[in-house]
């Protein structure tokens, strides 16, 4: 019962985004033991930002990007063409499925993709637009 009550209290504090001692203190009932109330509030305040970050990290989401590796190659020949010099890019993205669905065994899948110069430029253009949007939103 005790653990459950503490759990509820901390969840409530994180949910409401309470950051001030007064707000947390007034959650306790009137006759609550004074020192215990202060101690609990102190501990909660110390941990609040870590808990909030964890709440953000564990919310429902699409699969997350966890790693990316890349390499630039030059194709010099193949069974159909004897000589050529075609630069190409190999990209490997490691994507982790929704943490909430996988519990303690997150599933990480690797997506390997080849990009030519044209497709890479398309990507860059798209990413540039995201960056512009981000700055526009940040400046508001």
């Amino acid at each position, binding site marked *: 019962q005790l653990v459950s009550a503490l759990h509820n209290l901390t969840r409530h504090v994180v949910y409401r985004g309470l950051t001030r001692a007064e707000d947390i203190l007034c959650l306790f009932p009137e006759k609550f033991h004074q020192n215990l109330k202060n101690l609990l509030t102190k501990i909660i305040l110390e941990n609040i930002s870590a808990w*909030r970050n964890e*709440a953000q990290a564990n919310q429902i989401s699409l699969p997350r990007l966890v790693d990316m590796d890349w390499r*630039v190659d030059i194709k010099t020949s193949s069974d159909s063409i004897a000589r050529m010099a075609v630069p190409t890019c190999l*990209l490997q993205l490691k994507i982790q499925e929704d943490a909430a669905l996988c519990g303690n065994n997150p599933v990480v899948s690797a997506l390997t993709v080849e990009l030519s110069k044209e497709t890479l430029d398309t990507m*860059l253009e798209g990413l540039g637009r995201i960056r512009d949007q981000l700055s526009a939103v940040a400046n508001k």
Partner: protein
Amino acid sequence: AADKIRLIPQDFFAELCEQIIQHLNHKIPGVNTAELCQRIQTSGVDVNIGDLAKIANTLSFLFSTAARNNLSTEELITTLGSGVSPLPKHAVQVIRHVWNEQGKAIAASEDAGNMATVGQFVDMKWKLGVAMSSDTCRSLKYPYVTVTLTVADPSGQITDKSFEMTIPQFKNFFRQFKEMASVLETV
């Protein structure tokens, strides 16, 4: 595969063959099996995407082998007929028509794009969002970027892969791509 082919209505089968030939001709990056499957299902035919993928692969192999051996339409049809389980008449008709029209072109197109050992990038769609609230946090205000990559796998099937990035991750992502582009320039 022959029994499953039986299930597919003629016009969808024709569309599938068209896409496969166009992919082999490098006119399109891949075959959009998922989209085709959904349309077939909407029309009331019960076919699952695994079966459709197998059929697409079989047809792709059939067409590319025929191209490599320079088979004429008649030779192709004869080979089909001598297989273990005969294809339904409408399927043979479609294959004959498609091969007549575009089969010769496959043999002629050779280029650097022929060696796909990994997926080929087709397209990228993105979304910038802010998570306002969740069951754990009433006031989140957490920005994130969602990206959907459309990739054609080595067999030619097109799939989508979606994932999220935090803003710092996105900045790193962008930086890496700029680096890749500059290396590609100088190489």
